[in-house]
């Protein structure tokens, strides 16, 4: 648009544009469109003034709040003297190479033929087995089942209306069809409120104590994301809240989980449930993500510090959400009692309390999520 202007004198456009690769290396994905906008913005401003250059870049090259600290640090490093070493950039989350252990293929002691022959009854075998011990074929089976379950999507009523058999009178359509009958409204047409997909939010605990189950729960999250696209949000909780929605959108479950593994910085670390939940509610939930949504928290409720903050945040969450579902794999053990402090604090604010330790239990969980129905052994909210 404004490319006819000569390159700004004094500073040198090349030096300014050299900033872009440095910024990309710092983790701000400033693509071609944004680079062009940057140049156009520089053209409209005074490039001799570093503040104006700063704002030109920040307004055109960033697109997320998370980009801003990276941009600030990169800008300071690039224009503040240390010139474009490419290494003096702010911390980018390091990919975690071995987050997902290589899956051992078929150590069941049977020849492959036998296993294939039994494939039809695999589901029955799977049902009683703990997900922590699944092989990769069985995992695919799990993903397929969960994907099928996720095909029934949770819905909610909206304010919007559409033509329907019952409901209030639709004057507009009645008048319009009336035109055909010589201006007489012979048939009364009606409209009713429509339904829309209900949002599902999954918070998966990836701390050390949940490590055997986190894998399967993330697979469930992937299945729900794929089966309920555009209306599912996934976060990992542990010591840091990480939004995994983008990673979970990848079609292939293996790739999605690998991406999630790379994105989760606190894999198998400690737990700070109350703080995490609070961060979720402050930054996402209260603003609307949790409103009217089905919120699933998968955790064993081990809380390091005091459980009181967790109780407060759960109360807050239960006031926002349509249903709160808590998945605790330990619940399946017959001797289990919700005695951990965190669990006790959370329990009064939970609508459905399910186990999710095996495929059968995950099926139950999926039913709760999609139908909003009560899980077996569900504890009604006090």
């Amino acid at each position, binding site marked *: 648009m404004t490319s006819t202007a000569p390159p700004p004198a004094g500073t040198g456009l090349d030096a300014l544009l050299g900033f872009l690769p440095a910024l990309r290396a710092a983790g701000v994905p400033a693509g071609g*469109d944004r680079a062009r906008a940057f140049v156009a913005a520089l053209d409209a401003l005074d490039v001799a003034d*570093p503040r104006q250059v700063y704002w030109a870049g*920040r307004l055109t090259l*960033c697109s997320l709040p998370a980009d801003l600290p990276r941009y600030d640090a990169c800008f300071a490093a690039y224009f503040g003297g240390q010139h474009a070493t490419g290494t003096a950039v702010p911390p980018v989350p390091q990919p975690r190479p071995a987050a997902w252990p290589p899956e051992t293929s078929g150590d069941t002691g049977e020849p492959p033929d036998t296993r294939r022959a039994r494939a039809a009854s695999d589901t029955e075998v799977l049902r009683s087995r703990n997900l922590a011990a699944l092989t990769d074929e069985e995992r695919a089976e799990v993903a397929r089942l969960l994907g099928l379950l996720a095909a029934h999507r949770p819905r909610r009523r909206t304010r919007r209306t559409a033509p329907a058999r019952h409901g209030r009178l639709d004057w507009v359509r009645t008048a319009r069809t009336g035109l055909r009958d010589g201006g007489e409204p012979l048939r009364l047409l009606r409209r009713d409120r429509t339904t829309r997909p209900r949002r599902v939010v999954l918070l998966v605990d990836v701390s050390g104590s949940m490590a055997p189950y986190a894998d399967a729960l993330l697979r469930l999250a992937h299945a729900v994301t794929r089966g309920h696209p555009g209306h599912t949000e996934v976060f990992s909780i542990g010591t840091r809240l990480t939004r995994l929605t983008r990673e979970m959108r990848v079609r292939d479950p293996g790739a999605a989980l690998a991406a999630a593994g790379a994105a989760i910085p606190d894999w198998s670390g400690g737990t700070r449930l109350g703080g995490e939940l609070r961060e979720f509610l402050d930054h996402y939930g209260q*603003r609307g993500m949790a409103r009217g949504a089905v919120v699933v928290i998968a955790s064993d409720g081990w809380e390091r510090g005091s459980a009181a903050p967790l109780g*407060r945040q759960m109360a807050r969450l239960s006031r926002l959400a349509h249903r709160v579902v808590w998945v605790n794999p330990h619940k399946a053990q017959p001797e289990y009692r919700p005695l951990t402090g965190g669990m006790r604090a959370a329990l009064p604010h939970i609508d459905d309390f399910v186990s999710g330790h095996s495929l059968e239990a995950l099926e139950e969980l999926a039913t709760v999520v999609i139908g909003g129905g009560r899980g077996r052994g569900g504890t009604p909210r006090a």
Partner: protein
Amino acid sequence: MSDVIESRGLAVPAPADLAALLDAQDYLADDGVATACFLALRMGRPLFLEGDAGVGKTELAKALAAAVGGPLIRLQCYEGIDAAQALYDWDYPRQLLHLRAAQAAGADGVAELEAGLYDRRFLLARPLLRALETSGPAPSVLLIDEIDRADDEFEAFLLEFLADFTISIPELGTVRAAVPPLVVLTSNRTREVHDALKRRCLYHWMPHPDFHREVAIIRRRLPEATERLVRDVARVTQRLRDPAAAGPGLLKPPGVAESIDWAAALVALGARGLDRERAARTLGALVKHREDHDEVRRRLDDLLAGAASATGADGNGAPAGGDPG
């Protein structure tokens, strides 16, 4: 496109001049806001604003409209919003009446009747069409509020609209903007807005104002408040927003809108400075949750002491973000 501003009859050679125009509308713009608005005008790009509730995103759009001298047109997004609610709709009851009236008058040329039916006067203009129909010379300011509440489909539709600022109505023809509107989108981040939409926009994250700016904003809005009261109020709200000083923290830290309300409530009670009794009675203007109310009441002595001890020494509140060093 670079002389959009000149063609719009505005003398705004630099961001500082725009800041002065906004200042005349009682909106105190910092560097970032002024530059963002300036570039939006100059480059003809929509402005995408994100920030906590109450930092003044909607106020900015209002002030901007007054500053450039155009009308403010607001489109509030919600789940299920569709093109008919954003663009235009035909006024069927009136069309029907028109037909009846024509019949009664004895007119029966079918083609003529039909042509009369799809007249501009039977078209109900919704916000996007209204924004295009602004005659100028000043551009209208189109505020698309809380875009994150709308659906993906609507976002895609909006993308198309923002690309060429035209609306085609099959019965009437294409409506093209005489003066392209200045578009301001806001989002509360309940959902990530599609990158394609953001790419067309200038992105600005609005932080809470720092201490000095907050004092200036409250004084501007409430000239009758005493200097001491304004500084005390700003100091307390800054501390309530600061995660380091907050302790357990609040569900909803007060925005600038709340601090202005609080100061106004205190002024109404005749306060010249912040004292415990009046502060406790007016807390409802500052925090809007029962838990927050209890929390602030519990910490009130501490907050007031902090405010008093810092009197004289300016601005303990570090700016929440923004300026380069």
